[in-house]
């Protein structure tokens, strides 16, 4: 077995460990019967944490073996960066756990990491060669520090989600109940994306097209999902596959739109099935699990994670980024979309910190802000990398 295979297996092992860990955390939290429940919760919690740490070690193993195989830090494409991001989220969780011994965080942190790793696995995991601008030790320093900062900031969203899960009354109609359910629905959409990708891949679905791109040149594209949306002025080359239903103008990448469409369909079907079987909102199912957490403490964990993460993020995503940009291109700042979105993330968390000075921006409001902050981080990861073209773009 070559190093790269070992690496892949370690990642898989980590993924499984996180799944088991989530279930154990669920067990740790749920037991609230008065039959010596505290000790049992303690035992489950400890076990859950041990499994998480084992998973984390496997994850680090993946990272290191891939690093050795490639000869540079494995953070240079969408698959690598996103799996590393998942790894740092687990690391940040373990760090915050040892500071606050807050087992319940695992119940949200692990599923978030699982979704992120699952999402990452949908991207090609080949070892890509490095273009000249990435051949610098700053790649390692900048990307890893930025990812660490983002991960610690993500823990504030984890605490925020927990806070909201507990504090929002699922029985009472409210705006926050609607939006919280929307956040959970978004999580299900990620599952939908993973499932759609796996299923169509399993069937080996492929449809080749030619189309006319924005520069009026003919180009080729292969869909791996039934083409709902067709590229600009497309011609279908493969037999016996679905003809696109709608043709898109050249500026819209209809292939990506198709992927989003299928993720949406699969996710929505899963969501509806869950609702149909359980006859309850997802929020309603999760709400009883977190009854014992202390809201004050969660609020503080959320705030503290921003305090810890903000300087790290500034250092990695702005300071190191500027130093590298100065060295590679001779300008420390170029208003590249990724740069701008790092600045936006930074400004947002700056606003968060200043809002904590105003009265009333603690607790629920602060929790929502943390969730929005994480949404901006995800936007920067997903949309800016894949949709908005720029220097950091992993899309052509």
């Amino acid at each position, binding site marked *: 077995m070559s190093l790269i295979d070992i690496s892949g297996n370690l990642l898989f092992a980590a993924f499984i460990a996180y799944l088991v860990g989530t279930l154990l955390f669920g067990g740790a939290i749920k037991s609230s019967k008065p039959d010596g429940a505290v000790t049992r919760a303690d035992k489950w919690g400890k076990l859950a944490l041990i499994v998480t740490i084992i998973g984390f070690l496997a994850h680090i193993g993946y990272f290191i073996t891939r690093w050795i195989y490639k000869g540079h830090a494995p953070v240079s494409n969408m698959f690598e960066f996103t799996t590393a991001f998942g790894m740092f989220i687990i690391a940040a969780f373990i760090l915050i756990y040892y500071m606050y011994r807050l087992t319940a965080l695992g119940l949200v942190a692990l599923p978030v990491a699982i979704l992120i790793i699952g999402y990452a696995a949908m991207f090609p995991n080949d070892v890509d060669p490095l273009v000249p601008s990435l051949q610098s030790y700053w790649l390692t320093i900048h990307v890893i520090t930025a990812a660490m900062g983002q991960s610690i900031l993500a823990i504030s969203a984890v605490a925020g989600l927990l806070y909201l899960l507990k504090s929002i009354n699922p029985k009472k109609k409210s705006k926050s109940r609607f939006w919280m359910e929307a956040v959970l629905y978004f999580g299900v959409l990620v599952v939908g994306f993973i499932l759609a990708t796996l299923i169509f891949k399993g069937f080996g679905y492929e449809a080749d097209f030619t189309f006319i791109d924005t520069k009026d040149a003919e180009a080729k594209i292969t869909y791996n999902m039934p083409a709902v949306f067709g590229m600009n002025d497309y011609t279908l080359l493969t037999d016996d596959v679905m003809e696109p239903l709608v043709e898109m103008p050249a500026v819209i990448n209809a292939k990506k739109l198709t992927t989003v469409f299928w993720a949406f369909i699969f996710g929505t079907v899963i969501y509806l099935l869950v609702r149909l079987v359980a006859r309850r909102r997802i929020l309603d199912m999760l709400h009883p699990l977190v009854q014992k957490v202390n809201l004050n403490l969660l609020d503080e964990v959320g705030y503290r994670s921003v305090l810890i993460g903000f300087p790290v993020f500034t250092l990695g995503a702005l300071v190191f980024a500027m130093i590298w940009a100065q060295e590679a291109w001779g*300008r420390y700042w170029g208003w590249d979309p990724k740069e701008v979105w790092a600045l936006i993330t930074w400004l947002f968390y700056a606003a968060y910190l200043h809002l904590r000075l105003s009265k009333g921006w603690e607790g629920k409001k602060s929790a929502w802000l943390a969730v929005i902050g994480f949404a901006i981080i995800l936007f920067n990861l997903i949309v800016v990398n894949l949709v908005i073209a720029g220097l950091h773009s992993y899309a052509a």
Partner: protein
Amino acid sequence: MDKIICVCGHENPAGTKLCGKCGRPLTEEAKQSKIVDMKYDGAAIRSKTRNKSIVDKIWNFFSSVKVGIALIIINLIAASIGTIFPQEFYISVSTEEEKAIYYEKTYGSLGKLYYELGLSDIYSSWWFQVLVGMLAISIIVASIDRGIPLHRSLKNQRVKRHESFMKRQRVISEGPITEGDSAKTLSLVEEKLKKLKYKVRREGNALLAERGRFARYGPYINHVGLIIFLTAVMLRLVPGFYVDESMWVREGEMRAVPGMEGYFIENEEFILELHDNEATENQELQGVNVVAKNYQTNVKLYKQAEDAIPGKADNLELVKEYSIKVNHPLQHEGYSFYQMDFRLNEIKTMNFELTNKATGESLGAVSVDLTNPQDEYVIDDQTKVELLGYYPDFSGFENGEPQTATPTPNNPAFIFKMTTPENPEGEVSFVAIQQTIEPNGDNEYKMAFNSVETRNMSGLTVHKDSSIPWLALGGAIFMIGVAIGSYWNHRRLWVEQLEDGTIRLAAHTNKNWFGMKKDLDAVTEYAHLPKYIDQSDDEKDDEDEEKEKEGDSTL
């Protein structure tokens, strides 16, 4: 200005919320609250006390944290709008008309609107810069407005605080000690807190323990850093501070460096290396067959001798020999040369044979150096070729005249006049790539294309940015300030022993109550203090009726 005189006799400036000496709440709001607002330690803030003149009003506007946050959010939104479509400097057209067409053609009517609103060059627009400027003013004003009173009140802290202050802190405890001799309690508290690295002051039966006060200055330090940074960014506008030039240098060529007086750079060789891997899945998705591995220009940097005539490339001294690669610029005296672009295989020399069409016999070779075309190429005394016209980038005929689109030899064309022993008058021929026109009918001779010599061209940019040290300074101060403010916190404990030996304790921290409580737990146990309560615990989570009292902190 009216002073507020506290019951304790202390004179406080107007607008003070908590007496600077004893801590008694002075405003109605503070008196009503269960937990007192400890922002700026209740000191009077300029913006909250004066509101008469225009200056006061402007000052008050910019000092408001709410205005500051609003400015942050507005800047954030403005910045994000600039990423909807690519900015003008990322598209490869230059003139205004071309840009307008580009945005409309690529992004439709939305793109047109985006361009017409100036959003395609948002970051250099006056209003975006005004927004950033307003944020900077807000940072300066708010820091002065709050920082100075805060500093004063932290410096002049009294040990003993009034009961009404103590009871309105978030964490308090009151009652008899749980065991032991109450006469020793304060000493025990002092001993333990000193072990926990607190600075302890005692005054009679009162004690103030304090730790990490410098953390309160973190935000002000980072604001100073930000202002230095933003000022340094503006230094670019100062002439001579900032040089940003680009230049093309062909292999074997030497050129004066723009913006760097007296320096010349010679391109010895441009090297392009490619990865030899099989195309990966990502490459296939992106339609990229090969990935570049290295862009490199081997250069020699020369400096003119002191007494040389400016601009003339003689009397040069070699300064440096260097291989400029991406991420490895050549640096010299504050200037940096970056590998930015390249053009491969530009035609340098075209070689022809003067050939008799019928026999195929050659009378001799003519080699035209495109950078230095000669008027005439003499083969022997009876045979020569005159170059009547040279069109480096031939684009077609206009009114019978050949045209050239650019001065770059992308598609060279020539008009030759061939003088041979057979045709002493000369034969005229128009020669372009894969095209020959003989205006006077059938020629006997032709300029047969033989071979072409090419060379590469490197695109370099020359930068000098004297603001970099200032940017670095600002950035470093910011990072230090933000780390101080984030990783340390200011914890205070007020303890008073009443006449009957009972203890009254209050605790405050600007951040991290969890850590504060750990210290409290330790000191409570050590000095047998009464159990403390967190008065904010019963304020929150009122939404949940069936909630079990406090929840379990371990979960």
